[in-house]
């Protein structure tokens, strides 16, 4: 948390500006990491590590340059570090895969705000029971297993329902974005 010791002559971003940029880009950064690691907990962990580095390097950021790109570079490095740490795990994505996905995420990021709005809209359009299920699933800390226990339904069928709803949402978002482009 200590401030950078860069000499005062260099342009330095104020804490307020930094906080603003930082908070505005957290979501994008999270999605960037998640696509490459595929696991929400791992992605959160890496985001934390990345944030630590961002704060420590606060003084190195040049105002006027792209904050998100800068953060992504740091995150990429942290993802690789995390990969090292978990290398014994059975299933990890290849570096080639991660790189290719990362590029795609960057391309898609320009639409992020519109996607977020479309998602809101599509969530509202869901049948009530589907919506309730999705909310239960994504309640902080919840998992498909918890819901299955809660509802007394087989885990399989819960997963199937979730998959179906996610597909509905995915298609709805695609339609929404296509419609926007059309008008």
């Amino acid at each position: 948390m200590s401030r950078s010791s860069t000499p005062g002559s260099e342009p330095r971003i104020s804490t307020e500006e930094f906080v603003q940029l930082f908070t505005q880009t957290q979501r994008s950064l999270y999605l960037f990491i998640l696509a490459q690691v595929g696991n929400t907990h791992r992605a959160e962990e890496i985001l934390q590590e990345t944030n630590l580095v961002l704060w420590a390097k606060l003084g190195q950021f040049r105002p006027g340059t792209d904050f998100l790109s800068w953060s992504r570079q740091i995150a990429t490095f942290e993802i690789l570090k995390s990969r090292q740490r978990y290398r014994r795990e059975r299933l990890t994505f290849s570096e080639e895969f991660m790189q290719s996905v990362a590029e795609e995420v960057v391309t898609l990021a320009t639409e992020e705000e519109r996607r977020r709005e479309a998602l809101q809209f599509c969530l509202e359009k869901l049948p009530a029971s589907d919506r309730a299920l999705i909310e239960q699933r994504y309640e902080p800390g919840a998992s498909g297993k918890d819901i299955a226990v809660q509802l007394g339904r087989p885990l399989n069928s819960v997963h199937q329902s979730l998959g179906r709803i996610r597909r509905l949402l995915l298609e709805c978002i695609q339609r929404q974005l296509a419609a926007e482009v059309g008008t």
Partner: protein
Amino acid sequence: MTNQERNTLLAAIDALCEGELSAAQLAFLEQMVLSDSAARRLYVEAIALHGSLHWDAAGAGAMEAAVSPRPQAVPARSPRLRRFVPAIAIPAGIALLLTVIMTGLLPKPPVANSLSSAPAAAPRPDSQPAPWTSQIVNTTEAQSRIAPADRAHPIPEISLPAIPRAAPHEADAENSVATQAVPGATAGTIPAVTPIGEDQKLAAEIDRLLQVQQQDSGVPAARTATDAEWIRRVYLDLAGRIPTVDEAEAYFHDSRADKVLQLVDTLLNSPEFARQEATVWTNLLIGHSRTDNIDRTALFHWLSDQFADNRPWRETAMNLVAAKGTPAEGPTNFLLAHLNNQAVPATAITARIFLCEQLQCAQCHQHPVVKSWDQSRFWELNAFFQQTKIIASPEAGSGRNGSSPRMRQELVDASVLRPTYYESLRGVMQVAYPRYAGVEVQTSPKQSLRTQLAELMFAEDRPQAARAFVNRTWAQFFQYGFTFPLDDMGPHTPVSHPQLLEQLTADFVASEYDVRKLVRVICLTQAYRRSSQPAVPALVDDPAKGDLPLFAHMYIRPMTAEQLHDSLWIAAGISPRQLLTAQHEMRREDWLKQFYRAVDTEENSEATTFGETLPQALMMMNGDLVRTATTTPDNRLLEEVINRHGDAEADRIRRLSLAALSRYPTPEELNTVRDALRRSIRHRTERNMPTQLALAEGLKDLYWAYLNSSEFAISH
């Protein structure tokens, strides 16, 4: 990608989301993504959906989760918070569980629990220097919105940015606004003050109507708030900041029977009230972030003057709707900000702000619920604004030295009117002429269309504008209005207290739209003096979940960004008078910018990150302002507490608690905090730090913990 491949891919992604990806699925996923661009795209979209649901739920869901009583009462932090806390609390080492901070607000049993658990958890034999950690019992919405404070020890001694500080004599002044008649409020021009009795009768009538509904619902009213609870609330609402130590103590020791009334009147007549109302209305009218071509400050000052002189609301609102001229004139800025896009924002916002009617859906189609609101209703209102233009001319004196001249904006009404054309759902072009509530209006050389609109909106037989103002003002003091949403009072929205709303509206119209009187009546009700602890926690209405509010207890509100900013300065020991300076105004504007940004939509909306756990917590933990407040000698109040020789620890703690939370600590809190303070001093002296310095550092840490407690950032 064949259909079957697509399905297999989606199934693999689902398995990934649920943590059940098999090796075969992983291989398939990798191969598809690497070989097929459509598959790559699909994967990224699907995983982004999963991530968005997860991320957004962590923000919104955590709040809902906190509202419903959770089985595990103690700190269920939202994932979003978990995400960044370690980023702040680097050198962990826990010395204190300041479990106590919110206990004053909690129903009894949890208090007992949290306190009894505190000593058990606190004395860990820790070998590191002692930072403070406040662990806050997470039971209310407001709490979960505001970060618990994990402090990385200690704030390094850093060179502070030059924050303009008070001239010593100014900050030193013991003068509290509350204890003296403030000039500036143009006492002479206040319209004849109604006899005290009348407002109190009205307040009693309000309470009666509220009580009827509470009894019908079987919800008992909460106890009356303590002096400490009430004074903090009323200062935040009327002055936009917490009370100073002196103001709080003066009120506690005031033994007059009518001290509530006295304080309400003092605050209502202070320039701080005008400033607070002007702040609220500037934000409503033009938001925080829009700056192009408009002079936000001029609007703010104009509104301030209107409220300071207690001009009738009708006059203020009509001026805003009908204003002409340059930005410097103040009221013009409202429309200068919203005339873009064929005045679509101006139309929607005028209806929403002044009438609490959501017409914007009728822009493209018939209102989905209120069938009588069809497209023409929107466009006929829009037509009133079509006469108005913004013209830009080079500013006199600028652009002489070859530089391009500065342009001066001006709001003018053209003499000819072009009607509005719009496309109906069937694709037919329609024409709309200015018409409001069935009255068609002609252009006239004497009166602009907007002037005529303003008169129609505020005609005597049309109380909707007054009703809307009453609804908004009520919500300013109780968190919720009589309708939900507050600004959608169409015939389709249920009203929680119809009779009360009509009564207040009628009184407001009869008083010639007297803003101060309306606020005074509201502040004198019993309802406004209720504690935020429900009488029976099980029997509680929860408007956040869609219940119609009963106002049986005070709903806990997070501070607004402005309240938080000004309160932090007060906690940093400056005199309330300094909040009224132009210099402070600029400082506040700058500070607010970190939380707001404009969003380009047809409603000229803006996005805020204030109130979200993360940005607010970061600001509180690391921001320069909080650093100033916890640094000596920047914070004179803190310095005074530290340097008072011979003061017992308990007295120092009490004073810091009062400065931050407007109340004294409970005996249990005091014990816990004192133990922790002693431990932290011992830790430091063991490392050869002089005792006096160790005490100072310990007190600074304590003050930091108070400012970062949930209780600080809420109004309760």
